[in-house]
């Protein structure tokens, strides 16, 4: 296991270098310049500023410099916020984003498993149909629509929860629901299909022949076996959540990394774009690694050998 994780970490570093390279060149292809008011600056002034940030050097040299600095964990300073190191900027804003992402995926997956299992156990009943319709809605309605609806009805009309902002747990509930609805729907549908199949398998019949009750069968045998394929889905769902959170953070005015990411792209703030990309990629790859390890914990057949 340890050896495996170490190997995977090595691969992560390599993948990161590839991502840095691709993002770097794509970023440089974007139109516009980091200088906010370029048209009002004289050519000399522009060149001076560019030289100060190293933007006058050939592209490959810039690339090499960035790569070497990044490997030393130096991600430069922001163009937009004078003198602010990128690492500080991100560190200030990663908290809310990470909290929101984790809350959303935990809420979505756990509620999804519960609803999916309930639908599977009550297969072909009204409960099942209702849950299936909800699941399709959850998958097809974009999170920003759900967010607006939640703000309007629960925030404004009912006045139960704050509409926007980030000042405590109550503020996290609506964005968590908005963001978690899609993973919820996906896992519910997935678990239902999987569990229906598992409930028809021979080892469930043997469990019934042992005299176990339906709930014992579901809890002790069916659920764990139905979870195995869902773990595979959590990786891609995490991607969705991270990209989804950019929109949700804007809607709920959450001081997260998402809005900053969008801002940095709009202002050609190269160091921040790079830094955020690296952080997003890191989070993703760590999620995937955790997924693979969890896989082995749930299913002994694919437990990782040392």
């Amino acid at each position, binding site marked *: 296991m340890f050896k495996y994780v170490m190997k995977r970490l090595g691969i992560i570093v390599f993948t990161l270098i590839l991502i840095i390279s691709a993002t770097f060149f794509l970023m440089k292809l974007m139109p516009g310049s980091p200088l906010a008011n370029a048209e009002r600056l004289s050519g000399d002034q522009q060149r001076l500023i560019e030289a100060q940030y190293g933007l006058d050097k050939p592209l490959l040299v810039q690339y090499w410099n960035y790569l070497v600095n990044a490997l030393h964990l130096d991600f430069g300073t922001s163009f937009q916020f004078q003198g602010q190191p990128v690492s500080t900027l991100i560190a200030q804003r990663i908290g809310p984003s990470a909290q929101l992402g984790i809350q959303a995926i935990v809420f979505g997956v756990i509620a999804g498993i519960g609803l999916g299992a309930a639908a599977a156990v009550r297969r072909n009943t009204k409960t099942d149909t209702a849950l299936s319709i909800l699941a399709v809605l959850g998958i097809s309605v974009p999170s920003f629509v759900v967010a607006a609806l939640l703000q309007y009805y629960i925030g404004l009309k009912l006045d139960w929860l704050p509409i926007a902002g980030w000042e405590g747990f109550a503020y996290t509930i609506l964005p968590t629901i908005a963001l978690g609805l899609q993973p919820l729907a996906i896992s519910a549908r997935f678990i239902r299909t999987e569990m229906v199949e598992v409930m028809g*398998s*021979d*080892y469930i*019949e*043997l*469990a*019934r*022949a*042992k*005299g*176990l*009750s339906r709930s*014992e069968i579901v809890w*002790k*045998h069916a659920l*764990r*076996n139905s979870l*195995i394929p869902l773990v595979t889905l959590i990786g891609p769902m995490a991607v969705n959540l991270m990209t989804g959170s950019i929109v949700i953070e804007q809607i709920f005015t959450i001081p997260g990394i998402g809005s900053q990411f969008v801002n940095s792209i709009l202002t050609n703030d190269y160091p921040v774009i790079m830094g955020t990309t690296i952080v997003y990629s890191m989070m993703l790859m760590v999620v995937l690694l955790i997924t693979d390890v969890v896989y082995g914990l*749930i*299913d*002994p*057949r694919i437990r990782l050998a040392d």
Partner: protein
Amino acid sequence: MAEKVLTVDNLKINFHTDSGEVQAIGDVSFDLAKGETLAIVGESGSGKSVTTRSIMGLLAKNAQVDHGQITFKGQNILDLSEKQLQDLRGSEIAMIFQDPMTSLDPTMKIGQQIAEPLIKHQKLSKQAALEQALEMMKAVGIPNAEAHLNDYPHQFSGGMRQRIVIAIALIDHPEILIADEPTTALDVTIQAQILNLIKNIQQASASSVIFITHDLGVVAGVADRVAVMYAGQIVEIGTVDEIFYFPQHPYTWGLLNSMPTVETRTGVLESIPGTPPDLLNPPVGDAFTARNKYALAIDEQRQPPYFQLSPTHFAATWLLDDRAPEVTPPMEIQRRWQRYIKKHPEALEQRAQAKEVSTTLALTGKEDM
């Protein structure tokens, strides 16, 4: 006759399907004595599994018991609530399943899987249950059991997994053990080991066994009595000797005739022509008529009643009626008869005097009501 542990009376089960009522079993009756092994033989779809599933209370949702009862310890299993059935299953009536590769939960340690019925029924602590599970693993011949208590099913071979399935069935010392084709999925050498194991355990524990199979070769080694099922009915039932060496029903002849023996010389594998009848629209009269070259005119009109040859031997065929013409069974069956008659000189006489009897009386020894 030994004490009866189970009686099945006139059981008739239908399945509701989209295309109509499927008459899975119709009027099946038999009993099971303490310590006895009853083999139920028949081809796929003959109703042998449905019969045993109904004993476990494990019928599919679309199954409907039309009439009949299954009496176990003075109560009708068909009347029990789901909760009462749960108390019965795995404790007093246990089952060995067909395919050991798919019958075990892949994500649970086998020690725990074996211990589960004890924790459920005897309310034992996990620790105490696991200790008994370990003993049971040794009893079913899992070598070095201590080291394997915490292993998962995928770490075992098919034969070992079937031993684990057997251990699960036996852990709470059931009175009735239903073995649903327990050797079908295993290769021949392992089959023999598993059969011996079931036999030994049964002798040691004096439990009764219902052994379902489509393999007559297996039956000869394990059973005391044999019931031959066809299209949802028992067409012939008797002791192993009676069924193997003095069979009366043309279907039993067909089955025995299709089984190659060491004496088979022809090099041709015999078979029963045709396919089993459609149980959605069961034929009038004897269901086997269409495939039966010994069929009489009456077979197409009236279902044959049971004829009794000996206290234990019954067959549902018009050939045993006084008015039936004398037919010559296949060569292989004649050879078997000769051997039987040598040992039991009265057999032919009994056959000639075979009497028509009612189903319930015939198969459960009860007075008809």
